[in-house]
């Protein structure tokens, strides 16, 4: 099924194997390049099984379903999501995912990907917060994760490049950096407690280092099939899991603390190619 989605992309994209910013690449090719360029990264090389499974990444199965959802006329307003502007113009998905979060004139604020998707599902299609289409944020069966995987896949291999031209984009990114180092909770942790050094392990898990761009691009490359959960997960789900383990307070969906953290995450991976979708332990 996912082969259909791959073939549907322009041929020039699919054959582009060179690691060039702006060119679509198969996520497995992106990963192979990262592995080759970083033979000593314990984080990137930690799971032989996942590396072997990458061409058959179960996340690829969500792409077709997401594509159908994107173009289907749905919701109380019976319209597709083709009118949704992720920053590159209505319905323009190529390269949109790696250039988020960004400032949107129509809402007057900086929005991350999921916040923007939900905004479109509500404003264009007429869904409400209680509709399962919008309320269910996690799991392979959720519309949100299917749409996320389809849309993100259109940016695979492209370099993370969240815009910082608008002062609010810069302010959001800078606040995200402060939040990354802000210690709190019952264990006094910040994000850097685990992501400040390369090659460190928490129990058996090798952790990515935030200042190491080629480790960090894989770290922030969600959606990814998370083998241990047997589900495709989002950046927001990763944040949720981290703050839960850190014994901070829980972060709500569609809130600016998420946006600030993602602004900083994606900026910290700037210039490095995104693996979309990825496969993680």
């Amino acid at each position, binding site marked *: 099924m996912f082969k259909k989605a791959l073939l549907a992309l322009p041929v020039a994209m699919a054959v582009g194997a060179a690691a060039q910013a702006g060119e679509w690449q198969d996520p497995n090719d992106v990963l192979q390049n990262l592995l080759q360029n970083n033979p000593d990264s314990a984080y990137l090389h930690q799971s032989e099984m996942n590396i072997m499974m990458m061409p058959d990444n179960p996340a690829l199965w969500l792409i077709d379903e997401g594509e159908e959802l994107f173009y289907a006329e749905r919701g109380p307003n019976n319209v597709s999501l083709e009118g949704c502007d992720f920053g590159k113009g209505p319905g323009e998905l190529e390269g949109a995912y790696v250039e988020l979060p960004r400032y949107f004139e129509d*809402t*007057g*604020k*900086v929005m991350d990907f999921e916040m923007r998707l939900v905004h479109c599902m509500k404003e264009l299609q007429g869904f409400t917060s209680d509709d399962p289409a919008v309320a269910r944020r996690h799991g392979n069966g959720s519309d949100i994760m299917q749409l996320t995987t389809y849309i993100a896949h259109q940016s695979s291999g492209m370099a993370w490049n969240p815009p910082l031209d608008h*002062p*609010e984009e*810069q*302010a959001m990114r*800078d*606040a*995200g*950096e*402060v*939040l990354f*180092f*802000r*210690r*709190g*909770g*019952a*264990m*006094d*942790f*910040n994000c*850097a*407690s*685990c992501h*400040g050094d390369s*090659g*460190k*392990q*928490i*129990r*058996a898990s090798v*952790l990515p280092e935030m200042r190491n761009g080629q480790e960090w691009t894989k770290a922030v490359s969600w959606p990814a099939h998370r083998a241990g959960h047997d589900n495709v997960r989002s950046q927001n789900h990763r944040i*949720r899991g981290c*703050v*839960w*383990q850190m*014994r*901070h*307070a*829980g*972060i*709500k969906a569609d*809130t*600016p*603390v*998420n946006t*600030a953290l993602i602004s900083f995450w994606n900026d910290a991976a700037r210039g490095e190619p995104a693996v979309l979708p990825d496969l993680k332990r």
Partner: protein
Amino acid sequence: MLSNKTVGASLAIVASTALIAGCDGWMGERGGEVDITAMTAEEYAEYLVLETDSYSFEQEAQEGGSARDRMVQDGIQAACSLEGEPDADTAGEVIAMARESYEEPPGGPRLGNWRRGAELARSGYGYRIGHRNDDHGTREPGGNCYACHQMDPAEELYGTLGPSLAGYGATRGTDSSVVNYVHQVVSNPHQYFPCTKMPRFGHNNFLTEEQIAHVMAYLLDPESPVNQ
């Protein structure tokens, strides 16, 4: 204490800015009511954490109080919110704050039962809140030492964020000076390692004094597998 004052001052600025905005949603929603770019990154981050309804602050925390209390920083958390190592001045302030807030257990530090300590060292349960809450009524919280440290050399699953503690007690013995020192480190490690990643297990009431005694026995007791 300088860092405390600084943080207090930024909070005051943030609070007054919020008043100007009329506390009407978070400022980005209406656009332009408050000039975000006039805030420092620290002020904006503090505003995002405390004033934008981003967190489930109303949840109860297992230690008492609310989830909000978890995200309001104390002096050491604020001073150590930095990248890399603290400078000498910050390190000195943090050590002073840690010494000042350290509490010795009634009757002085002691060693408990290393078998109980082994269970606590392996357990990562406890104090998690958000989408799912750890229920301390059904399961005791643990210290999760193995997440970061090697301890029993026979245990293969251990983290490396902290130093290896394999054989820790074998070379140090169990003199009162050693026992006192280990308690200070487990309870409030910033006294010796300013801005360490390690939690303040005693100061934060993450472990009870009885639990700390068990973990210390696991580390120091000559019979413990850590020292074999």
